């Protein structure tokens, strides 16, 4: 089917059914959780924090504390500043955090609370105490998604903590976006093998995937050290993942203020996007690719060859966060899967351009690209698109079930399977894991649909 043949009206509903995005402060909370000694703090009413905790916990299966200023009716009318200050004091007493990461919510954005001013007053009033660092980010959910919250929090951490030029320290900053804990661990390994000292911000590898403990800790160990964030201005480069990121980001802030070169590349998913990442690492480190990764790359190509026939021409619907969708589409189109629809709940992210770029030269059809979609919109089109496969987080399950096609679970949240936080997706190794999973999903379906029950496939 040629791309020109697909002329379909984009659905345009007023209501939203089964949203394909999450709210902004959730992303900020996740990012703050990746800073050492930090506790996320939502300035708003209690319900939001409780809901988000529950949502995050069901994916990571880890304790996730998110404090709240717990505004009531009075504060909603007279302003939440006093509750914010009181809340920080209480959090200090109870958690002894090194950092309080404050994200606003729809309520406090709507009533127009001035968080920076409240924080300034707080510092003046309680300057005699041993105060934690405070970092704030504006996260109204009525203009953005959890990814905006994530990127906003990362930028806030960088701009509010890294305020002066530090001497060159030869480090490399990596802003990995929202990836799995296993992915972050893998990034550390890769950097180590390249001889790179990396500051990965945020680092959720331990804070959201920690070991069993004898004693409960208020704030889990791990996370990006605050001292390292403060010295990001001395790094030799920043690498940030995301082709659909806002123009102003953590990386651009370091570049604009301190001249740290910013390499903005796509999430290293699949062979070609991973190549770009490894090339960037070679560039910034001056070290050629270690043999270990040559081998990983070779194994990936070998697997692509071994498995290509099983999946060639299969039609996939991909959905989720904008950059994850780009990365998955890059990967799927290079293995011969036709992405028929690529959708995200976010708006105005330049998804079409990004997808055109990463599928250039490999995709046989140009996917329908949709921003601002919910699952109802996707379903409305999927009937005619007739997918063989869904790829995305676990909220697409009801549709996979309805259409009797496999769902390959990638991203956040995975609420109906075990181990989502440990799923590798990045680099050659991640691509190999994804490839195995996609091929096996297709094989499993074929096997279970077959009356014969082949023993070899």
């Amino acid at each position, binding site marked *: 089917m040629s791309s020109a043949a697909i002329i379909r009206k984009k659905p345009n509903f*007023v*209501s*939203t*059914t*089964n*949203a394909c*995005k*999450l*709210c902004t402060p959730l992303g900020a909370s996740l990012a703050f959780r990746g800073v050492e000694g930090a506790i996320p703090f939502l300035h*708003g*009413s*209690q*319900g*939001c*924090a*409780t*809901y988000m*905790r*529950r949502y995050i*916990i069901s994916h990571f*299966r880890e*304790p*996730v*504390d*998110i404090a*709240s*200023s*717990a*505004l*009531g*009716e009075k504060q*909603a009318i007279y302003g939440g500043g006093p*509750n914010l200050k*009181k*809340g*920080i*004091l*209480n*959090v200090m007493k*109870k958690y002894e955090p090194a950092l309080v990461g404050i994200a606003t*919510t*729809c*309520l406090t954005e*709507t*009533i127009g609370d001035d968080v920076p001013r409240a924080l300034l007053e707080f510092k003046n009033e309680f300057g005699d105490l041993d105060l934690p660092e405070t970092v704030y980010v504006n996260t*109204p*959910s*009525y*203009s953005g*998604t959890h990814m905006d919250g994530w990127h906003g929090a990362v930028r806030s951490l960088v701009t509010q903590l890294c305020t002066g030029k530090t001497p060159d320290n030869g480090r490399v900053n990596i802003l990995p976006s929202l990836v799995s804990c296993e992915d972050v661990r893998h990034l550390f390994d890769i950097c180590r093998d390249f001889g790179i000292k990396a500051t990965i911000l945020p680092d959720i590898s331990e804070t959201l995937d920690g070991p*069993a*403990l*004898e*004693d*409960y800790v*208020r704030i889990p160990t791990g996370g990006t050290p605050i001292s390292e964030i403060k010295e990001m201005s001395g790094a030799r480069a920043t690498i940030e993942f995301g082709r659909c990121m806002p123009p102003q980001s953590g990386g651009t802030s370091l570049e604009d203020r301190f001249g740290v070169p910013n390499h903005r590349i796509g999430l290293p998913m699949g062979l070609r996007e991973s190549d770009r990442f490894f090339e960037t690492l070679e560039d910034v480190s001056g070290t050629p690719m270690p043999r270990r990764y040559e081998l990983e790359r070779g194994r990936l190509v070998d697997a692509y060859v071994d498995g290509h026939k099983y999946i060639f021409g299969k039609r996939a619907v991909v959905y989720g966060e904008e950059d994850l969708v780009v990365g998955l589409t890059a990967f799927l189109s290079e293995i011969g899967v036709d992405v028929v629809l690529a959708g995200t*709940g976010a708006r105005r992210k330049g998804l079409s351009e990004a997808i055109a770029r990463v599928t250039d030269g490999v995709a046989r059809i140009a996917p329908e690209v949709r921003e601002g979609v*919910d699952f109802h919109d996707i379903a409305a089109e999927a009937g005619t698109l007739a997918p063989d496969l869904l790829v995305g987080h676990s*909220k697409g399950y*009801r549709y996979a079930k309805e259409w009797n096609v496999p769902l390959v679970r990638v991203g956040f949240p995975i609420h109906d399977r075990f181990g989502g936080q440990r799923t590798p997706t990045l680099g050659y190794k991640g691509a190999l894991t994804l490839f195995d999973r996609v091929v096996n999903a297709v094989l499993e379906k074929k096997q279970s649909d077959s009356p014969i029950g082949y023993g070899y496939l």
Partner: protein
Amino acid sequence: MTETTTILEERKDQIHLTGQGAIDIACNRESLAGAVSQRACVFCGSRVVLYPIADALHLVHGPIGCAVYTWDIRGSLSSGPMLHRLSFSTDLQETDVIFGGEKKLEAALIELIDRHHPNAAFVYSTCIVGIIGDDVEAVCRRVGEQKGIPVLPVQSEGFKGNKRAGYEAACKAMFKLVGTGDVGDVPPVSVNILGDFNLAGEIWIIRDYLERMGVQVVANITGDGRVADIRRCHGAALNLVQCSGATMELAKMMEEQYGTPFERVSYLGIEDMAESLYKVADFFKDKDPGIVERTQKLVKEELERLMPELARYRKDLEGKKVAMYVGGSFKAFSLVKAFRHLGMKVVMVGSQTGTKEDYAELEQITDPGTVIIDDANPLELSHFIKEKDVDVFVGGVKERPIAYKLGVGFCDHNHERKEALEGFVGMLNFAREIHSSAMSPVWRFAPRRANRIAAEKKEAVNE
């Protein structure tokens, strides 16, 4: 309770030890700013009560999060329509916040009603709707008239209180349905089941018991609920109200307006289940003299089946220690008794929404030294889990990771469970679940046990 680092000064009067002076727990207060509370908002309370009404449209008016976090979060099984399992939102955007969301709400309602043909629609107000001042009521009235179905606003702005206030808002919305249906064919021996949400098919178990007793169920409120049933539920002779909080308000309103009496019941655990059925039998024995005997027979049959199986589990579980943290404290009463049947010791009881009277009653039925706690947060929970060396922790999804982090068995007794834990058969499921937690070999590898085992070994060698 001198560990001030764990227990914030201001929270001290929300924790009590059974046997230590008069109980005076300060509950139902607003969550403390900065404390990480497990407590939810008004909207959450309304949503959980109304959610299981399966042929109604549930539209969340607000920004996306509030709707997204409540999409499909509970089992709430339906034997028919499943409209409730879709998550509808007006997904307010910046312009709506500035210029008001009424137009969008109206258009969304009309669109969704035309698409799904529900028998009623509930429109939930979330926090910012309360701030931007949308006249939700007027929109609902207009659309209701236009579409010819009840369109009911639920005043559930999150910041206006806690979950309990949300229960009330839900009851008020539902009450507008009550009395609008024909009760001509409702028999005299009939009840409504209030406060069961059919998380894992429980309401079908209870209905089966009642039917075997000869009692007809008019409306499930709200598990596997239907709009038409609620509209005529005022025809029932009796309301059975489970749980202390969620639907009590509706029962009270119905008593006042329609004179429908209510009984508080519990389907958790053996005594409570049997007692609840006997209460029903007692209520109807003048109208239907055979009912008492039928009920006795039913209970006898069920127990004969249950007890031998239960004994097998009890053998293993005898003496194990359990802590619980549940939504409503009424549930806690039943659980305390249920654990007694398993030979287990309850060392901590916490609740999100208990009242003073609830806590006083809890003190009565627990052993001295049991910790009673209102609106606990993770640090407090973990503190007591460790201090009391708990074997099994019963709580909701938010508590599970704390228990698991510390290597303690866990049983989900809140909203996300997939096993029916009510009725006699539910007691067996419950025992099985507790058993599979407490008896798993994995706890020995968890540090708190592994280190102890290692220390004991060392001692043995030294002796």
